[in-house]
């Protein structure tokens, strides 16, 4: 019996990384909760409402998507469709090649990670630069983001300063302010030289064809101020029906993601720049990416498509806090990833089938989710799906002996007495092989068998006595 891949990864995580992740997630989660409760009389009602709006969206995508396509085209954008990752990559390459573009600056988009865009473009001779500070550091380190909102939550300043030095961004200096200034200097030259800028979209409004992009650093704004061409990569589930929904969603997103009332830059884009505006794209492309989403829509976990990628569920998750993001071996970690990653894996579902099991089903993710996704229910459905598909079972002790113990009072009493021996036998010597795997990563508490019965008997005795005294 062997442990699951996610557990194996967790065992190898250096303690200081675990600590960085733990501190970062906990602080954001606590601030988020305070802010929501302070600003709104009934924040839960807002989460439920937002959940209803998004459920409406995913169940009406077949009418909303053509509607948004029509609005975007009317605004002067060109709309493309990509059924899978390869098609999405081809669209981006074709747009760039048509313009003779060789330099792309990229704001954060999870879809680009999903379709592994950067290595593909580099192989075709196109420089593809991440401009979000965290994503940039991930890029120069040849690492992967470990959190969807805070990609380098697993890194400390010393590691970052070392990679800056290695990459010719100045002599070693680990002051966060110096690191940030150096990135600023380096990046603005890149923006100005770039032929195209890429963004994702946090929301796309069907009634107006408005793309909404939020960032704190201003990198997406720069990517849409300097280059002449804008390419937006958008998952097909990102829609909102109406502009009025934005007030609700922007309020929830900023608080859930980064514990802010509003993200610093919230950009609403309806098309190429206005006539008379000297800066910004003269050409705008929107690529709607499916890449497994319609399969999710057809399945029994479609609620996960409500997700607005805020990261709140990972910040609160006791498992994520211990194992960090890379243990999920996917673009989307944490509770949302435990549902979405196996589903998006398609034929490789079984490789990710351990993820839904890495949860105590405590329900915290559901409670913080700004679109109220019942993640624990979805995890259970996926466990079931995994079982039926023949996923490997993790190291659990067999339940047969337990059934025997629990149904025979004599055996039970004998076991209670014999159990004391466990205090003296190291778990490795327990003569049941199945127990080894299970006990390897756990320490047993001191044996307390029989204590409850004793306590109950005495409690009843005491009750009778005090009862008598009162009388």
């Amino acid at each position, binding site marked *: 019996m062997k442990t699951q891949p996610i557990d194996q990864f967790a065992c190898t995580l250096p303690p200081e990384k675990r600590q*960085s992740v733990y*501190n970062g997630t906990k602080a*954001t989660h606590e601030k988020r909760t305070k802010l929501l409760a302070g*600003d*709104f*009389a009934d924040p839960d009602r*807002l989460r439920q409402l937002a959940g209803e*709006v998004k*459920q*409406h969206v995913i169940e*009406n995508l077949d009418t909303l998507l*053509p509607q948004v396509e029509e609005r975007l085209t009317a*605004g002067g954008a060109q709309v*493309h*469709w*990509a*059924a899978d990752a390869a098609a999405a990559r081809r*669209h981006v390459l074709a747009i760039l090649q048509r313009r003779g573009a060789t330099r792309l600056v990229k704001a954060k988009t999870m879809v680009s990670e999903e379709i592994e865009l950067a290595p593909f473009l580099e192989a075709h001779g196109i420089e593809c630069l991440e401009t979000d*500070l965290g994503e940039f*550091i991930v890029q120069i380190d040849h690492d992967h983001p470990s959190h969807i909102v*805070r*990609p380098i939550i697993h890194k400390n*300043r010393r590691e*970052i300063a070392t990679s800056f030095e290695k990459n010719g961004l100045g002599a070693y200096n680990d002051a*966060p302010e110096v690191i*940030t200034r150096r990135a*600023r200097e380096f990046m*603005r030259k890149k923006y100005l030289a770039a032929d195209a800028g890429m963004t994702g979209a946090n929301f796309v409004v069907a009634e*107006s064809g408005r793309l909404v992009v939020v960032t*704190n*650093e*201003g990198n997406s*704004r*720069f990517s849409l*101020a300097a280059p002449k061409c804008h390419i937006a990569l958008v998952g097909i589930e990102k829609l909102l029906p109406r*502009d*009025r929904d934005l*007030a609700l969603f*922007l309020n929830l997103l900023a608080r859930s993601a*980064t514990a*802010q*009332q*509003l*993200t*610093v*830059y*919230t*950009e*609403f*884009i*309806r098309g190429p720049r*206005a006539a008379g*505006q*000297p*800066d910004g794209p003269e050409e705008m492309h929107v690529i*709607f990416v*499916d890449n497994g989403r*319609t399969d999710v*829509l057809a399945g029994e976990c*479609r609620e996960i498509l409500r997700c607005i990628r805020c990261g709140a569920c990972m910040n609160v998750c006791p498992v994520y806090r211990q194992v960090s993001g890379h243990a999920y071996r996917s673009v989307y970690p944490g509770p949302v990833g435990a549902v979405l990653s196996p589903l998006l894996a398609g034929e490789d579902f079984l490789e990710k089938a351990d993820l839904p099991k890495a949860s105590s089903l405590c329900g915290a993710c559901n409670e913080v989710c700004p679109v109220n996704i019942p993640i624990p229910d979805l995890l259970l459905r996926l466990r079931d799906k995994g079982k039926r598909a023949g996923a490997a079972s993790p190291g659990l002790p067999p339940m047969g002996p337990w059934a025997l113990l629990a149904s025979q009072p004599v055996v039970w009493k004998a076991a209670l007495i014999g159990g004391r021996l466990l205090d003296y036998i190291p778990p490795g010597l327990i003569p049941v092989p199945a127990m080894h795997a299970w006990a390897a990563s756990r320490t047993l508490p001191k044996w307390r068998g029989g204590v409850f019965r004793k306590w109950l008997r005495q409690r009843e005795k005491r009750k009778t006595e005090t009862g008598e005294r009162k009388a």
Partner: protein
Amino acid sequence: MNDDREVILSRMRGALAPLRKRAAYPNFPDDVAVMREVVDWKDPWSVFCERTRLVNGESMERVEDVVALLKANHWLHGYCDPQLWPRLAPAFGPEFTVETAFDRTRVDDYQFGITRAVGAIAETGTLILSDASTSCRLGALAPWVHIAVLRREEVMANMAQAVALLGDDPNIIWVTGPSKTADVEGILIEGVHGPGRQIALLLG
């Protein structure tokens, strides 16, 4: 590749066909997410000033104050929207070099940029810039200091009102304080790619 459109839409119709009923769009008022303590505030500009301070934004009512701040920091070279400059110029002394055309080959020459805002949101301390109001996007973004000029009556109470007025402009950006990051160990640093100082200036 354009067949992908049909592929996606037909998969989608297939996925949704078995649903007996589609989830309806819920009913809710436009102001459902308006912050409670801000709802009844009367003078939006003073609320704006208070709230923008919370996100390290600044607000000023006199152009002389802006000039004094720039001088004190030796920020003497800047860009100004050509339509605004005639009104502001008298307050700027001869030590200043202010250009009314932004030269993108010298972005780092400009220490400040002055452009017009179309409005502001009191509730969040947010400035609203649009393509129609902003004489040049880079002038409001690349310099260390951005000064956004607006009128008192252009300040709206809350986000719901601002959303209702988004309109047709191809590009609107809401700016809530200076550019910031907390990517390195969660420590807040301002002035990442955009301005490190974000100032709202009242015009008359």
